[in-house]
């Protein structure tokens, strides 16, 4: 059984102007020990989706569908049960470089806090565990007495990772863990996450706008646009031969290091993500799509198989695969 299963999850914010759909029917699953990357521009709903997993969204957000963590629906949990699951079963790595750490408390106390809250350790044992965790993320144990502002951005991010590991969770949700770090530190932090996750057999959901980062760390990739998954599949394939035009644009937005051709000709994507209050009819991506057809303005294509273990929501994929499937059937008969 998969560790995490999202079944038709939707998130709607009720705001003054009406209802704002941030996530619209996302279904994904994650096996124990696997790593899933969720990519998309800002406003694609990827962070909202991540926060919904532990019901951390503000009160004005309504979450629909089912979020099964180890077979138990997070959305149906009672408050006490939810608190027990938080951090102990699934923890989150935020952008520690920014404001993820409480500025007036020592980092040792912040790392030990979930251990004490969940009754997993007495204060003395928690202190020892903090030293052990800091060592695991490559920080000296005396750093436990430091305050967040005394650390560099990369060190703070390491603290965030140590904190996420504290209760030995089965799932870690990393929300833009390397944003706002410089490239060298970014690579160090990514390596660290990759190794710790593999070593402890922890499942990982990583959220980022950077497809290359996700392809590096994750086995599976899901590309989100306007609150929906538009392409899903093994990360290498999605990154290198994306089937959805949006995934292609996202993959091309980051030049390959050492490849002058890609640097000289960066392929950006014109326009802005759509206003969730006024989504275009048909395929939400069609106004920005370089290969849009007339029918895209009215036809909303669902995720369609686009290869072994892959799906994509594009009319071109549907057309190609339908022909392929039909052709194969004809040949077989």
């Amino acid at each position: 059984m998969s560790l995490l299963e999202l079944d038709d999850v939707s998130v709607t914010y009720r705001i003054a102007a009406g209802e704002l759909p941030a996530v619209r029917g996302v279904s994904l699953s994650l096996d124990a020990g696997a790593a899933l990357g969720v990519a998309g521009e800002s406003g694609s709903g990827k962070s909202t989706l991540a926060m919904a997993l532990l019901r951390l969204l503000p009160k004005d957000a309504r979450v629909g569908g089912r979020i099964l963590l180890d077979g138990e629906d997070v959305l149906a949990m009672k408050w006490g049960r939810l608190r027990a699951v938080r951090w102990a079963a699934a923890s989150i790595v935020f952008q520690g470089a920014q404001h993820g750490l409480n500025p007036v408390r020592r980092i040792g106390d912040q790392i030990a806090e979930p251990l004490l809250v969940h009754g997993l350790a007495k204060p003395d044992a928690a202190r020892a565990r903090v030293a052990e965790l800091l060592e695991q993320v490559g920080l000296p144990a005396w750093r436990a007495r430091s305050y967040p502002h005394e650390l560099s951005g990369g060190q703070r991010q390491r603290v965030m990772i140590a904190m996420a590991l504290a209760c030995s969770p089965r799932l870690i949700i990393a929300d833009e863990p390397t944003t706002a770090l410089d490239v060298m530190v970014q690579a160090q932090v990514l390596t660290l996450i990759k190794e710790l996750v593999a070593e402890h057999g922890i499942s990982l959901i990583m959220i980022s706008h950077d497809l290359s980062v996700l392809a590096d760390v994750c086995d599976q990739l899901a590309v989100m646009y306007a609150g929906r998954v538009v392409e899903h599949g093994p990360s290498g394939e999605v990154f290198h031969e994306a089937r959805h035009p949006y995934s292609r644009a996202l993959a091309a937005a980051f030049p390959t290091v050492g490849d002058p051709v890609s640097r000289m000709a960066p392929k950006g994507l014109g326009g802005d993500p759509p206003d969730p209050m006024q989504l275009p009819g048909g395929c939400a991506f069609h106004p920005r799509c370089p290969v849009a057809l007339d029918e895209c303005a009215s036809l909303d294509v669902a995720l369609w198989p686009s290869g072994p273990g892959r799906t994509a929501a594009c009319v071109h994929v549907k057309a190609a695969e339908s022909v392929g499937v039909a052709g194969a059937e004809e040949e077989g008969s």
Partner: protein
Amino acid sequence: MTTPLEAAEPAAIQAAGPGDERPTYRGMLRYALSKAGGALFSIAMVLVGTFFVFRLLPGDPVRNLAQGRNMTPAQLDLERRRLGLDKPLLDQFIDFVGDTLRLDLGTSYEYKRPVLDLIGERLGPTLLLAGTGLVIAVSLGIWQGTRAGWRHGSRFDRFSTGTSLLLWSVPTFWLGLLLMMVFGVGIGPIPGILPFRGIESVDAPDGFAYLLDVGSHMVLPCLTLVAVVYAQYLLIMRSSLVEEISQDYVTVARAKGLRDDDVRRHHAVPNALLPTVTLVFMRVGFVVGGAVTVETIFTWPGLGQLFYQAISVPDFTLMQGTFMLITVAVIVMNTLADVVYHILDPRVRSA
């Protein structure tokens, strides 16, 4: 695949490289001393300001003291000489500074008694009234501000913020007189239930009953004092809490499985309190000055009332004494606020 330890090593060296950044308490002491130096300079300036500004006030003290009595110009001159007002201004100032440094604040023109004694008598009642008022106002403001900010936009928020703002915009003397009329004098057939003059009854009993007597005298002035000032604590606490709530570390705390109350108590409030602490310390300084208006309305025998009486003479020495006490208290408290803030906020500490 490399082991985590290998990958971690360069980072560990790098992390320990820039040296031990743990807070040094010597730096703290140096900070406190430099602040104290600044405070001493301010107090010196106050000394100068006090003397000259009050000499600019209109009114001749000798003439006012002689009011109603028939005095010859020769008698007035004699009185001036007795008070030292015949000397050149600079000589007067030098005398004033010398005496002040010896803690001799002079003799009141009006009361014919040492100013220091007068202040000593009045300090107790003032600290009692204004201190109690401050404690209540700060607690009420922080408590309501925290509740309002944590659930901003709620009915409680709208009600408490609205009420406090309304009371804040009310003039102190008007509210004081209103409370006095309603609860002190009584309206129509309803008798007044609380005393509103002075600090104790004429026939004050002894022991515990005396405390009750003073307590009942305190209710109305205290209520006035609290009502008009608690809004500032509420508002500053509320707005800084609202700001903290949207920070990531609060979401992290919730994600850790903390109860809502613990998220508020252990994470959001300690951060939101910082601006409030500064404000409270600044107000503590003013406590010494009492509340001139409230003390005057309720004839509370405190420093505020003394200051008010001194201005109406004008009783130079008494004014100088009380004014200096108030300003020095404010300066000392501001300095203390800086130091305390330094201790509370680790970010300021290392800056």
